């Protein structure tokens, strides 16, 4: 009886599926309800970012980086600008550096809130989504006040930031931080420790630390696998070395190392750490200019550069090859979601169909960045 095998079945999941978080197609090979193999097909959102960047001047590329990871556009702006500045060896004014950390951390909270909300929705809980969006709205409101856009900010520029922030706007952030921390505990009560939610995520889709490192998985997904690695701490850029914060560890009391619940929970811990950083930013922010003194036309010297930053989804790297003109010869983006997606196949083998949505949601992918 044990030798009896049922016929394998192929099933298309996506590209238009509510839990694939964008246009992602997964070809599932099934034995009954057990997933034998899951092959992701990407590229539905390909917009030629890298080729396009070769025909644009450096300031013109920044709005396009907004559209890579559109949920955390500030972090993408920052990643690209820091790379160009490293090539140009530019000195950035203090206030601009602090403002960059401020918007990057706020955007990290906004991004994790969306991850939390949609993950609840994937797992069948609709209410947390509305709570997450209520708080996210305050952050988007602040971004609208300082840069005029709610999603594609184009705020961080080469040499500083686009606009200065008024004290009234900073008070908005202060007020938000006061309200926000108790809300995170509310989310934990609402979803994180809910028995049904735990049953669906604990011990499901385990990514071992060895596999995570060999696939190049970064960010919260890597930390959930028990690897203590955060670029803000280990390779500080901007002024991150001045702030006190912890890199959260996987919780082994309730979950298992590298399972879906830990991948989800790391993001909740990170939001609290971001609040800690933001409080220090608000205390330390100096007065002064927000843009470095430099020529209007940005022409980095001949050479190549690679720089990586920690976005909410992991390590975002940009490689730029310059020939001394106002346009780059080659731009390459190293996407954190792409590596997370490549580990997906390994994670999902042997799971049930219903767990596939749990795995995709916990990896927190953004297809705009995978396809570029």
């Amino acid at each position: 009886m044990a030798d009896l095998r049922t016929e394998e079945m192929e099933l298309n999941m996506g590209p238009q599926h509510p839990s694939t978080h964008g246009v992602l197609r997964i070809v599932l090979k099934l034995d009954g309800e057990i997933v034998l193999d899951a092959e992701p097909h990407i590229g539905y959102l390909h917009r030629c970012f890298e080729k396009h960047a070769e025909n644009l001047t450096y300031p013109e590329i920044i709005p396009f980086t907004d559209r890579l990871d559109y949920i955390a556009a500030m972090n993408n702006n920052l990643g690209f600008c820091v790379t160009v500045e490293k090539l140009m060896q530019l000195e950035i004014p203090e206030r601009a550096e602090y403002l960059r950390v401020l918007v990057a951390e706020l955007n990290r909270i906004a991004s994790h809130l969306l991850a939390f909300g949609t993950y609840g929705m994937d797992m069948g809980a609709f209410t947390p989504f509305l709570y997450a969006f209520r708080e996210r709205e305050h952050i988007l409101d602040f971004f609208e006040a300082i840069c005029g856009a709610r999603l594609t900010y184009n705020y961080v520029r080469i040499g500083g930031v686009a606009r200065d922030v008024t004290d009234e706007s900073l008070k908005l952030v202060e007020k938000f931080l006061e309200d926000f921390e108790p809300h995170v505990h509310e989310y934990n009560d609402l979803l994180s420790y809910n028995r049904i939610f735990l049953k669906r995520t604990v011990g499901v889709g385990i990514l071992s630390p060895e596999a995570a490192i060999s696939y190049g998985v970064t960010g919260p997904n890597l930390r959930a696998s028990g690897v203590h690695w955060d670029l803000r701490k280990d390779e500080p850029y901007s002024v991150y070395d001045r702030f006190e914060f912890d890199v959260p560890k996987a919780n082994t009391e309730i979950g298992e190392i590298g399972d879906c619940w830990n991948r989800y929970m790391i993001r909740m811990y990170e939001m609290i750490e971001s609040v800690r950083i933001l409080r220090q930013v608000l205390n330390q922010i100096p007065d002064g200019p927000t843009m470095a003194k430099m020529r209007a036309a940005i022409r980095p010297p001949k050479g190549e550069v690679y720089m990586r930053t920690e976005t909410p989804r992991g390590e975002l790297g940009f490689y730029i090859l310059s020939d001394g003109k106002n346009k780059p010869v080659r731009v390459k983006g190293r996407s954190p979601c792409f590596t997370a997606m490549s580990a997906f196949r390994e994670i999902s083998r042997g799971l049930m169909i219903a767990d596939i949505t749990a795995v995709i949601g916990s990896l927190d992918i953004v297809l705009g960045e995978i396809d570029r």
Partner: protein
Amino acid sequence: MRAYFRNIYAAVSTILIGMRITFKEMFHPSVTNQYPYQYYFEKRKNVRGIHKGFRGQLYIRMEDCIGCKKCAMICPVDCIYIETSRLEKGITLSDTRAVVRLKDQTVWIGELLEGDEKIEPGTVVKLRDLDGNLHESPSEHVEHVVTSKKRRLKLDRFDIDMSLCMFCGLCTEVCSTSCLYMTQTHEFSTYDRASLLFHFADPSIYEGLTPDETETKAEDGADASEGRKQKAARRRQREETA
């Protein structure tokens, strides 16, 4: 058996914890906005207005445009089309107006009395607007100052294709007279894509202009000579100051 019931108890109790949080919301005011029928700017509890610096539809004050084409150059998607030609000899157009933008995105347009494009810390920026009101601000609060400039080109075409625009705002930042700006309008969807190509240039404003008219605004010969005198006097004055 015991584990079975404990499991049920855990499931029910954690749901009840969640329900307690949602139950509290019953006593909070509603934040829902019935959008097309109820607008964001209607004063209501929990509904905020739109922010001053919002990047919406592009608009240009044509009377201040000098035709430098900087906006068309920097546009990443090339959605601004400009064609210029030289003015006929002797025709002068009015100078552009100065613009001061504060850090809270308040904009003043008019005549600059104090201050310069290069904002020195510790100074004051003063401006008289078109209605004659005086505005003053310490330079710490000023984000951007644009002084009055000469208009030497005739704008035959100034089109913006809003169907291509990606609302990055780069064009408004490079504008040498700050006449291109983004309004708070964001509801301009149409059924026809062609209607999103906005034409701003108005060639008819150049039609009535002849060299004499623009200089002196006079019809008969006496007034014309008066105009010439004025012109000479003005030239002398300019030489003296220089």
